[in-house]
């Protein structure tokens, strides 16, 4: 069954996208990502350690030839900072993809919608493939598509909260209206949350803490791989209608 996710001509092998934060070490990061089957890997842009040059580099463990690197602008609170981080990320020469994340509130880490919109517009014009992290707001999703977003990435719940999809109806509206792929980004906690996102018809799920914060990250990574596949297949298959009362599965005919 040909069911490939394609964004701006880029073909994605997996509908599971994973972050690289919060792992014990780079070895565990590499093992978890391998087990997840993901081919998109998010990374953050930070100062190079200029004092300890023996410290390992993430890209020694995550081969950019094997994975699509999706740099983020995490930690940015203004449009200007997001632009600066995005441009630096592209300058490394690894990727034209950028996850725009402009935080509007420290406690919830909810995105600043206005700054996200402006940054998306500017970076899309500069040729970036812009994937903005947004609230589960259908109107914002449309505005971002108009601004040139290659996909929209509504949150399921606050980053790192593990609460799962809090508003599946808004996600459904975004799916119906947005003319670009929809990637649920942030807030999923376990495999069933991922399956629900995929059953709704989302094009992919991006997660980090749900794997890195599990008791056994490698096993959870494998669970997530199956959840994405199961959810996607269920969506393609089309679920049965919900009914209030029972319908027997065994025939009455032939009973004694």
């Amino acid at each position, binding site marked *: 069954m040909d069911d490939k996710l394609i964004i701006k001509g880029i073909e994605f092998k997996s509908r599971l996208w994973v972050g690289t934060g919060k792992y014990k070490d780079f070895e565990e990061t590499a093992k978890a990502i391998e087990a997840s089957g993901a081919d998109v890997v998010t990374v*953050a842009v930070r100062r190079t350690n*200029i004092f300890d040059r023996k410290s390992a580099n993430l890209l020694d463990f995550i081969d950019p030839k094997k994975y699509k690197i999706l740099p983020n602008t995490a930690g940015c609170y203004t449009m200007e900072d997001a632009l600066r981080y995005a441009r630096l990320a592209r300058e490394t020469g690894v990727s034209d993809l950028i996850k725009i994340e402009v935080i509007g509130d420290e406690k919830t880490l909810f995105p600043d919608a206005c700054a996200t919109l402006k940054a998306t517009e500017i970076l899309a014009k500069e040729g970036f493939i812009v994937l903005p992290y947004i609230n589960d707001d259908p109107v914002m999703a449309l505005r971002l598509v108009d601004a040139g977003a290659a996909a929209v990435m509504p949150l399921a719940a606050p980053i790192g909260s593990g609460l799962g999809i809090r508003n599946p109806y808004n996600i459904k509206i975004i799916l119906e209206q947005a003319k670009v792929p929809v990637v649920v980004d942030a807030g999923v906690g376990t495999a069933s949350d991922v399956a629900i996102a995929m059953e709704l018809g989302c094009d992919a799920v991006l997660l*980090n803490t749900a794997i890195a914060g599990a008791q056994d990250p490698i096993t959870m990574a494998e669970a997530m791989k199956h959840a994405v596949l199961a959810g996607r297949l269920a969506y393609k298959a089309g679920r049965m209608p919900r009914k209030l009362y029972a319908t027997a599965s065994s025939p009455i005919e032939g009973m004694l």
Partner: protein
Amino acid sequence: MKLKINGTDSEMQDGITVSRLLETLQIEPARVAVEVNLQIVKKCNFDDHILKDGDSIEIVNFVGGG
């Protein structure tokens, strides 16, 4: 000359290029992006860009993130 590198005051040889600075710091140029006084220096210009006394330099790379 004095340079500010990733927020830290450093003393470097006069007139060195970005390439030479990275070499001195034992940083692999392929893995980083460099900004001098808030302006990005493209990799193809690392060999030619001569640093001046008082320049503020940022050298960044990718780390784990979500």
